[in-house]
């Protein structure tokens, strides 16, 4: 395997029928990293992935793989492996034939080919199924064949197009971890497309959040959650309540006020003035007995949903905004229309 297998996009634009699906994006994915393209459907993430594979060619801009310009190289000329959403296993070939297919395109000698295919199949733990047809395997096994088929060619880059969407919820966690482990083991640069933020947070070294064909933010899962750069990222990753108010200096400290209610003490870099704060649902704490805190806020419960491990509440602030909050405590659920006091933990707050 080559040492440098980075992927770079330089001002890449993709237009379909006069609609810009990808609007001049730039990024570099470092060698050996697993990076997720995350965004709602129609944000251009799949198109971006397909441009790396060469299944779409950009309208303008440059794509570099391993430092080489591959912008106009056809898919079969790039050394890229891809795991498709539908797996796209060839139904008329056995598992072994599927895995060997890519090698046969490189004119490898037969002995070598079989050795590599066996190794790939054992990596995904499917050696005993090599003579079966894809239709004789379960969904999870089919997916592992698809992975074996794409790693056996020792690609510079491995691409995953929503690989978990055809699996049931339980299997999804398992396979997600398997993919991560495999990627770490063989150290291949990998790019993973998903619309599921939890999946992205769980698996990635870095996440590229996309919206409307543009990159909203690039960063580690932790950075995206804690320091979203814009409203879209704040809302899309981990949910957030949006509150408009002002940051006022009180001596050395800065306090965020909404309609003269002081909500929390701010410790970030933003200066005083009108600002918008995004508050995570789990940053609220219900004050059951002690209401004496300086930042206690009186609210009315509108509705609640009991979900076992936690309870979700919708509450109304005195100035008429509704807030969505999650309570992880073991306390009794609170009845609708009750008046309660809540407090905000400023670690769950970001001002953008």
């Amino acid at each position, binding site marked *: 395997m080559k040492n440098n297998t980075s992927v770079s996009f330089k001002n890449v634009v993709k237009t379909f029928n006069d609609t810009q699906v990808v609007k001049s994006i730039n990024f570099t994915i470092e060698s050996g990293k697993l990076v997720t393209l995350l965004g709602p459907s129609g944000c251009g993430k799949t198109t971006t992935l397909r441009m790396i*594979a060469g*299944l779409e060619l950009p309208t303008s801009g440059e794509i570099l793989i391993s430092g080489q310009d591959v*912008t106009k190289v*056809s898919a079969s000329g790039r050394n890229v492996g*891809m795991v498709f959403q*539908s797996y*796209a296993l060839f139904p008329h070939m056995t598992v072994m034939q599927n895995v060997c297919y*890519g090698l046969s395109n490189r004119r490898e000698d037969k002995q070598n080919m079989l050795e590599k295919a066996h190794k790939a199949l054992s990596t995904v733990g499917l050696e005993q199924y090599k003579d079966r047809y894809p239709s004789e395997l379960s969904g999870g096994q089919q997916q592992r064949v698809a992975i074996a088929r794409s790693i056996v060619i020792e690609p510079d880059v491995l691409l995953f197009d929503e690989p978990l969407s055809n699996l049931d919820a339980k299997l999804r966690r398992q396979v997600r971890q398997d993919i991560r482990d495999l990627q770490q083991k063989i150290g291949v640069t990998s790019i993973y497309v998903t619309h599921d933020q939890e999946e992205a947070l769980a698996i990635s070294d870095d996440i590229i959040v996309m919206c409307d064909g543009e990159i909203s933010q690039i960063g580690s899962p932790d950075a995206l959650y804690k320091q979203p750069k814009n409203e879209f990222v704040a809302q899309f990753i981990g949910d957030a309540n949006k509150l408009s108010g002002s940051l006022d200096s009180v001596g050395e400290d800065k306090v965020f006020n909404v309609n003269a209610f002081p909500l929390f003490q701010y410790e970030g870099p933003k200066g005083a003035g009108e600002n918008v704060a995004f508050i995570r649902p789990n940053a609220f704490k219900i004050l059951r007995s002690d209401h004496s805190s300086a930042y206690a806020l009186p609210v009315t419960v509108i509705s609640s949903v009991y979900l076992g491990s936690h309870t979700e509440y919708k509450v109304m602030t005195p100035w008429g905004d509704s807030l969505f909050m999650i309570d992880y405590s073991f306390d009794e659920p609170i009845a609708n229309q009750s008046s309660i006091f809540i407090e905000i933990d400023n670690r769950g707050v970001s001002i953008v």
Partner: protein
Amino acid sequence: MKHFHRNTLIIGLVGILLIPWYRLYGNFWAFEWLSLDFFYNEDNAPLIFQIFVFSKSWLLLAVGPFLFYGLHLLSSKSNEVRFKRLSYYQLYYGLVGVFAVIFQSLLVGDFGVNFEWANAFLSEDAYQVGTGGGTLLLILSYLLLIANGLAYRGFMKGDVFSTSCLIIIIFLVSVFVIFPVLNILIRAFYVNEVGFSLNAFIDRFAIANLWSLDCRPSSNSICGSAWSTLFLAVMTGLSTTILGLAFALVVTRTNFFGKKYLGFFSVLPMITPPFVVGMALILLLGSSGIITEWIESVFNVELGGWIYGFWGIWIAQTLSYTPIAFLVLIGVVEGISPSMEEASQTLGASNYKTFFTVSLPLMRPGLANAFLLGFIESMADLGNALVLGGDYQVLSAQIFFAVAGASADDGKAATLAIVLLMFTLTTFFIQKRWVGKTNYNTVTGKGDGGRYCDLPIHVKYFSLGVVIPWVLFTLTVYAIILLGGFVETWGVDNSFSLKHYVDAFRVEFVNNAFVATGVAWDSLITTIALALIAMPLTSFIGLLTGYLLSRVDFPGKSYFEFGTMLSFAIPGIVIGVAYVIAFNQAPIDLTYTALIIVLCFVFRNMSVGVRSGIASLSQLDKGLDEASITLGATGFKTLRKVIMPLMKQAIISSMIYSFIRSITSISAVIFLVSAEFNLSSAYIIGLVEANQFGVAIAYATALIVIMSIAIALMKLLVGNRKVFLRAQK
């Protein structure tokens, strides 16, 4: 890519140096071309000798771009830069080359220089005959060069194979569909020895018997054939749609005992040569038909030849095209989700109200579609109009007589062809743009359980009341076809006889060898041989086009699709006239060859392959192709190893359909046959015109049997589905 590029150059060189530049006369299978002398004369020499030995200087135009490209190739050195810059040269020289070859072939024709200004450069005795293999290879090489250049520049995602296929198909469709059709447009304005004249066209266009509105039956005048054609087409469209709907309702919504066998009727028209129904009608209802004679003797009336004219053609067309409407409508009726009807019933609607306010409106686009198909088929029909037409003038028959008649008026035929083409193309447009887009198909595949509600009683009785007599009538017609060949002389001496079959298919044992002396053998063998040659070609080019249309994106795709589907909308008779006019002189001279018939079969039936290709590819996950390509396979390997094995059924069925359609086609090929290459359908029409019904029916029955065997073979091969195809979701 480099292999591909090298092959391109080799094809070009072979075309220039080795293969005869012009078409060959004489028999290819005589192997005269094995001797060197054969090549070293003006008729058969390759391009290089034509230029330098036989001083056809204008041919330098054709080879020039190839040489210049070669010079560029030799002069550029570094590989990296070379390939980037090369793509421009490939595009440039490829395009210039194609145009240069076409230009020089138009410049000098059979009788010398075609343009006066060129006399200054070329000698007076310059001439050239139709193009041959050398020209073909050189053009192919230029086309591949274009494809190469486009692919390097990222066209079709850089896939050389798909790009080459696209370019070649575009070229072939342009030459063999678009060029001939445009050519008749030109011919409509052209008068021999006068030249182009708008007046000539207006005169031809405005003739009274085309547009006359004097349609009163009493006045002894004859309606304009344009109106007659339209009226007949509307009537046929209506009758086939109503009958087709009745059939579809009976099959899907009743428990009528015989409904299982109705599906068989959908196969009948496919295997029935188009004029056979007309012949059977004459035997039944003609002036001396059995039913006619029976009615005349029982009721003591004189029926006469009422069948010859509108009524006869209409009944024959309705018989022939009802199954087409049935096939369309059964899909439509089954496409309505039962839950729609259940919803209507739970909302309190009766059967009657549900049918007329929910089910029927949902079928509306399908009904319109079926109507338009019947409409187009009726206008394009020549066989029944020839056999039963009488005094009723329709365009297709008029075109036929304009070419085949004593006056042989190309210009008139061309003008009539344009009128007919106008009608069918308009209908085709309406069908594509308007009806084709509105689709109420409500079956979603999710939770569409449930049961269709019962038909309202009136609708049910109406459907059965229409279907049962019609089935009986159809059965009678086909019984006549089967029996007609075994009767001594129809209506005169109805005793059993094998005479007609013997006349047609006699084989004698002479001088220790079997000799086929029956009159049918020549045309039958030619027909089957040519249909078999056309079969894989049609299927291949059709499916390949279907592949490009459904799998690859490229600019101008909708125009490409339109061009390939055009052959469906062009009536056979128009194609026939167009081929005769376009391909009877240099640059493309194919008169009286087998090749012109094969080409006509291929481009006429190509749409069958296109449609079956698109249909079967739409069920194949697109990810399969993409997976193959990302695993490093070329477009060609993907097609060969992944797509083709999964499309076996489509390949087989499109081959069989193209075979059958070739055998049953009449209107497109009737002008293309010659003494040497005669076809069954044209031969049978000749028998009918000579009033030899016995032999004609015997021959037609034999054709039906052959095609039934082909269909049975297809069912056998296609029915053999492998389980793994169910695997993909």
